[in-house]
């Protein structure tokens, strides 16, 4: 679908800004509801995430003594800005990305990492042993999942011969779904996304039974709300990216809802089925299994490309 909308509307309402915030909340609700249903519970109401965010925004924000005030206030804003910006390059809601250039795949992944890094910095900045441990784990996890996730999204990019998300999306819509052609890459991408979002099997960075609330222990009110929002938006972007690459592209809103919803269902099932891994197990899993599988996938794709060129 191709629409021409005024850039300001694109940034503030659709598909950036308000629409993105709303979809982030809806996806958070869907995730919580699915996990609750898998646990045989009723689960939260539809407006629950909205109530959470509004309540947090209305609360007092405590800036701990010893923390750098400027950084403490600015980091949540940077995280949210990074997430919102990254969303402009992906085919959100089945609409062609409004800002697109050669190499925007790298920029998107970089912006999503900027979010995680600001999370880590926030933990290291607030003077608290729990948030410091949480920050260390967040950054350790960043270094472990980032390489396999990148390898996994490079697969479709190599096949499509482009670094542009919209072109890969269009190419994925034309050929057989990449989940069939590159099943290993899909698996690594999906599990990598869960690591990126710090969802249950990989939630050692915010393990509430060990380190209170991880990097965000000292954040209350506004800062915490913004970090939660940026996590939700990262969930939407990640799901869109994986769906666009591996599930045959996203061409219209129905595609978007069905494919990201299906992915979310699988992710909620994985969240419910597995217990939390220790941080060393996470790192081991990613580097010993994830990265190797990603590399094998890349080699197979390269071999396929060369064989095809040689034959034709």
């Amino acid at each position, binding site marked *: 679908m191709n629409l021409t909308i005024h850039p300001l509307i694109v940034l503030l309402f659709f598909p950036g800004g308000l629409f993105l915030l709303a979809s982030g909340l809806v996806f958070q609700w869907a995730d*919580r509801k699915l996990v*609750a249903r898998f*646990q*045989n*519970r*009723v*689960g*939260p*109401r539809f*407006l*629950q995430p*909205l*109530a*959470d*965010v*509004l*309540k947090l925004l*209305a*609360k*007092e*924000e*405590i800036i*701990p*003594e*010893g*923390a750098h005030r400027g950084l403490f206030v600015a980091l949540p804003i940077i995280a949210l800005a990074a997430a919102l910006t990254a969303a402009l390059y992906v085919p959100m809601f089945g609409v062609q990305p409004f800002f697109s250039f050669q190499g925007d795949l790298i920029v998107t992944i970089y912006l999503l990492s900027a979010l995680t890094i600001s999370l880590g910095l926030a933990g290291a900045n607030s*003077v*608290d042993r*729990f948030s410091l441990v949480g920050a260390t784990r967040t950054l350790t996890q960043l270094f472990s999942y980032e390489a396999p996730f990148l390898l996994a999204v490079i697969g479709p990019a190599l096949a499509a011969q482009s670094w542009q998300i919209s072109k890969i999306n269009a190419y994925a819509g034309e050929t057989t779904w990449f989940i069939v052609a590159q099943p290993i890459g899909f698996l690594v991408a999906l599990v990598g996304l869960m690591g990126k979002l710090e969802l249950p099997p990989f939630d050692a960075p915010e393990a*509430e*039974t060990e380190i*209170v*609330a991880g990097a*965000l*222990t*000292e*954040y*209350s*009110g506004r800062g*915490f709300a913004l970090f939660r929002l940026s996590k939700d938006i990262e969930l939407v972007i990640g799901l869109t990216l994986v769906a666009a690459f591996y599930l045959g592209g996203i061409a219209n809103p129905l595609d978007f809802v069905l494919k990201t919803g299906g992915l979310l269902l699988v992710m909620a099932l994985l969240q419910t089925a597995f217990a939390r891994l220790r941080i060393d197990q996470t790192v081991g899993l990613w580097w010993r299994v994830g990265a190797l599988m990603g590399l094998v996938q890349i080699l197979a794709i390269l071999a396929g490309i060369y064989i095809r060129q040689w034959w034709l």
Partner: protein
Amino acid sequence: MGLEVSTPWQQVLDKIRTWARVNSPWAIHFNSGSCNGCDIEILATLTPRYDVERFGIKLQGSPRHADVLICTGPVSLQAKDRLLRIYWQMPEPKFVIAVGSCGLSGGVFHGCYNIVHGIDEVLPVDVFVPGCPPRPEGIIYGVAVLLEALKSGKRPERTMTVELPAGFEMPQAEVRQ
């Protein structure tokens, strides 16, 4: 609530704020010297069987994220400072629910030399849930009573009126170089 001015805009904002507050009470759980019976019941309340996420109740690890302090026990002298510290770490507006007979009056520990006899001696308590221990339904009802009071605006938003106990110093954050 907050401001004296009551323009229509302010009223709408207040309504939204109250709605959000009533629908998302995040709790933190603290045991101030209880026998653990009430704490087991509180944990039972949070299990899928009772599913308090229906009402938006979530157990938080950090006092900075919590709105409601669910507190058990007769407040032993050892636990008193810790209880106060947890309370002060919570951001405003914050509410306290005392769970169990001990939290109300000292319960079976009444008359002991080493307790403060009830949470309301230390903190401003909003809701008391009696029982030894109270059933999970009772605890959920206690939270519902608090939320009902919030909704009708009966519970005025109060600022900290708790006096610092003599010789108690607020712990300072240690700055590592």
